[in-house]
């Protein structure tokens, strides 16, 4: 360690006088001495040059080695332990982050599926309501009831009986003469030459298309003392045809309720 530090100066003082640097004429000026050494080198510089060459060689080697070497060979045990603990810390952090993200993902997924289920339910309900409200054309199995007037006029009560019996056994869609869709608000009125149903004048024969369970529907019309008998008593004729597939094209304009409001929270 001891170098050309101040404490060494005294013992070296006499030596330069002996002339290590070819007798610098101006000992006061370091700059002049340096210039002198550069311009007029002596053989004494050879050993210095040798050591400096060694230094340059070592510096270049170390710099290159430092750039090239990315393995852990040559590291101290403590350094390796530090690297290892740093890695394990990083791994723990990454795992915690992964757990957090996975939980977030699960939350989002369950949220999405809940929302989808709600949406599906709402769509199903909307479909059912659209059918019940007569807003869309429907198709399915059912019966076609044809009421013709033979000898007398069919009374309004008998017609309402028919509709009522059909509803009782769960008719899902009813249309009369392919023109009027019968829903909850449908009104019936007796007029000259036929019936006024929802503002449409319908004349006999009345063709009632009904979608539902065909056997039940036909039974509902033709049971003993049922509407079929009442119509025959009026002087009409009833035929019921069970169909495996039946289209009802007639639809009803949606009505916005003017007075009724939804009860909040129900």
């Amino acid at each position, binding site marked *: 360690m*001891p170098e050309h530090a101040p404490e060494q100066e005294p013992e070296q003082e006499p030596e330069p006088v002996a002339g290590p640097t070819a007798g610098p004429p101006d000992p006061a000026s*370091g*700059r002049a001495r340096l210039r002198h050494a550069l311009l007029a080198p002596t053989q004494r510089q050879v050993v*210095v040059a040798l*050591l400096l060459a060694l230094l340059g060689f070592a*510096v*270049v080697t170390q710099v290159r080695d*430092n750039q090239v070497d990315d393995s852990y060979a040559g590291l101290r045990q403590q350094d390796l332990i530090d690297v290892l603990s740093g890695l394990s810390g990083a791994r723990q952090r990454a795992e915690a982050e992964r757990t957090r993200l996975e939980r977030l993902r699960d939350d989002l997924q369950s949220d999405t599926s809940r929302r989808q289920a709600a949406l599906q339910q709402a769509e199903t309900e909307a479909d059912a309501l659209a059918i019940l409200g007569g807003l869309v054309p429907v198709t399915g199995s059912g019966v076609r009831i044809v009421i013709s007037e033979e000898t007398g006029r069919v009374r309004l009560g008998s017609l309402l009986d028919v509709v009522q019996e059909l509803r009782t056994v769960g008719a899902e869609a009813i249309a009369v003469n392919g023109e009027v869709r019968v829903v909850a608000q449908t009104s019936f009125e007796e007029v000259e030459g036929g019936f006024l149903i929802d503002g449409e004048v319908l004349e006999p024969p009345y063709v009632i298309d009904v979608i539902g369970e065909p056997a039940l529907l036909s039974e509902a019309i033709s049971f003993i003392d049922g509407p079929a008998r009442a119509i025959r008593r009026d002087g009409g004729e009833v035929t019921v045809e069970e169909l495996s597939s039946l289209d009802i094209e007639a639809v009803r304009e949606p009505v916005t309720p003017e007075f009724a409001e939804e009860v909040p929270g129900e």
Partner: protein
Amino acid sequence: MIAALGLLVGVVLGLLLQPDVPVGLEPYLPIAVVAALDAVFGALRAYLDGIFDDKVFVISFVSNVVIAAGIVYVGDRLGVGGQLSTGVIVVLGIRIFSNVAAIRRHLFHA
């Protein structure tokens, strides 16, 4: 001039040969390099002071390198190699700074 040429030759040799550092020497080479740098700056300062002696330079160069590497070696044996090499670097760095300050005063009078 010869000294500067020597430094140049060493750098060129290192670039050309591209030697691999032996694994056993890997922790000591950087310390040795810094110690040698300290010796060189000390020598330059002594030269500017007019008290340079090549014998002293050679001995201080070699002993600097050996002692610095030795301290780190002992530190490695004791299990405090990392800390000791940091300490050696700090001490050598301080010395390099003070030597360079003296050189600067000589060359630039500032």
